[in-house]
C-alpha cells in the first residue's frame, strides 16, 4: 500500500480549531509538524526522551481528566515505547488520543525503514492493549470527533508519504516549554502549586 497522505496536512487537520486541546509531540518530525501548523502555549513539543511522548500524554490525561489530550508522534518514537500502550490500556483515560504519523521511516537519521515498513501493525497492538478505538488511517478524513469527543483512549496510525520537509523548529528551552504550558493550562496556580500540595 502506497501512502497518499502528507504529514503536514494531517497534523494541520488534527489541530484544526484546537481550542483548549492539550498537545504533546514526539521528538523530531512531529515536533516540527505541530510547529508548522502553528505553535501554541498548550503544545509541548519534545526534543529528546525518545519513547516517552505517549507516557507524557498519559500523565497529563490523568492529571487533567476534564481536558482533551492529543499525543502526536512518529512511528519510530512510538516503537521505542510500545510498553506505554499497555500502560495506557490499563489506565484507560477517556480523554486521551494517540496519533502516530507513520511514514515507516526514521526521518531524522537518514530515512531508514522502521518496523512498520515490514508490516508491524501499531493500531492492532493498541487495540490488543485495551484502547477503546484504534485504527489505521490511509484516506483523508476529519479527526474532529475522535480528538475532541470520542471516549478514549483512542489510537490512530496515520499512514503518510515519506518526505523530507523544511524544518519548523519550536523553542529549544525546556523550562520555557514547560512553564508556558503550565501557565496557559493552570493560570496563576501554575506558580502557586510549587509551594503547596
Amino acid at each position: 500500500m502506497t501512502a497518499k497522505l502528507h504529514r503536514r496536512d494531517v497534523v494541520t487537520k488534527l489541530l484544526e480549531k484546537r481550542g483548549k486541546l492539550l498537545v504533546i509531540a514526539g521528538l523530531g518530525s512531529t515536533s516540527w509538524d505541530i510547529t508548522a501548523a502553528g505553535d501554541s502555549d498548550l503544545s509541548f513539543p519534545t526534543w529528546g526522551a525518545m519513547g516517552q511522548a505517549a507516557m507524557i500524554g498519559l500523565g497529563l490525561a490523568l492529571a487533567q481528566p476534564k481536558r482533551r489530550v492529543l499525543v502526536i508522534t512518529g512511528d519510530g518514537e512510538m516503537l521505542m515505547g510500545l510498553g506505554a500502550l499497555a500502560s495506557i490500556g490499563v489506565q484507560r483515560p477517556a480523554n486521551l488520543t494517540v496519533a502516530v504519523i507513520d511514514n515507516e521511516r526514521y526521518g531524522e537519521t537518514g530515512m531508514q525503514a522502521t518496523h512498520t515498513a515490514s508490516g508491524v501493525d501499531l493500531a492492532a497492538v493498541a487495540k490488543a492493549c485495551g484502547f477503546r478505538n484504534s485504527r489505521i488511517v490511509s484516506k483523508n478524513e476529519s479527526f474532529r470527533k475522535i480528538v475532541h469527543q470520542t471516549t478514549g483512549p483512542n489510537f490512530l496510525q496515520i499512514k503518510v508519504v515519506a518526505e523530507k520537509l523544511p524544518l519548523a523548529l519550536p523553542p529549544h528551552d525546556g523550562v520555557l516549554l514547560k512553564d508556558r504550558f503550565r501557565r496557559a493550562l493552570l493560570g496563576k496556580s501554575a506558580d502557586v502549586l510549587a509551594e503547596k500540595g
Partner: protein
Amino acid sequence: MPPSDWSAQVRRELVAAGVRVVGYVPDAGHKRLIELCQADASMRAVVLTTEEDGIGLAAGAWLGGKRSVLLMQSSGVGNIINVLGMVQVCRIPLVMVVTMRGEAGEFNSWQVPMGEATARVLEAMGVTVRRAEKEEEISRLVRNALRSCYRDGSASAILIAQRVVGIKSFQEQRSQ
C-alpha cells in the same frame, strides 16, 4: 514488618505533600507501599512496563499540575538514564524511591553491577541521591525530597539500603 512500618509512614508523607500519581515497576521491597498507594483514593497508582515510562508519566502529570512519585528497584535506574535528560533540561520536579539490590547479602549476582553503579549513574544525570541505611530514616528523606524538588524543580532519589528491605533468598521471596 512492625505495625509502624516505613511504607505506611511514606504513604502519609505522600498524602501530606499532595502526591496524586504514583508510578511503579514492582519490587518486593516496595510491595506494601504499592498496596497502600493502590488502596488510597487520593492517588492514582500506575503500573509501568519499564521504569523510564515513569519519567514521562511524572513529566505529564506535572505539566497538568499534579505531583507524583516513582517507585522502582535499583536495576530500574539503568532504564531511565536517557530520559533523565528531559527532567534536567525542563527542570521537572521528580522524586524517586529506589529499593537497592546487589548489596551485601544479595543472592543474585546479576544484580550486583547495577546495584554498585546506581548512585553514580543517578548523580551523573543530575539527580540528588540520599541513602537510607535505617528504616526510620526513610520517611524523613522522602519528605525532604518532596519539599525541595517541588520547590526548585529538581530531581531526587532516595535509595533504601538492601539490608533495610532484607530480601536475601528465593525462599524468603517465595514466602512473601
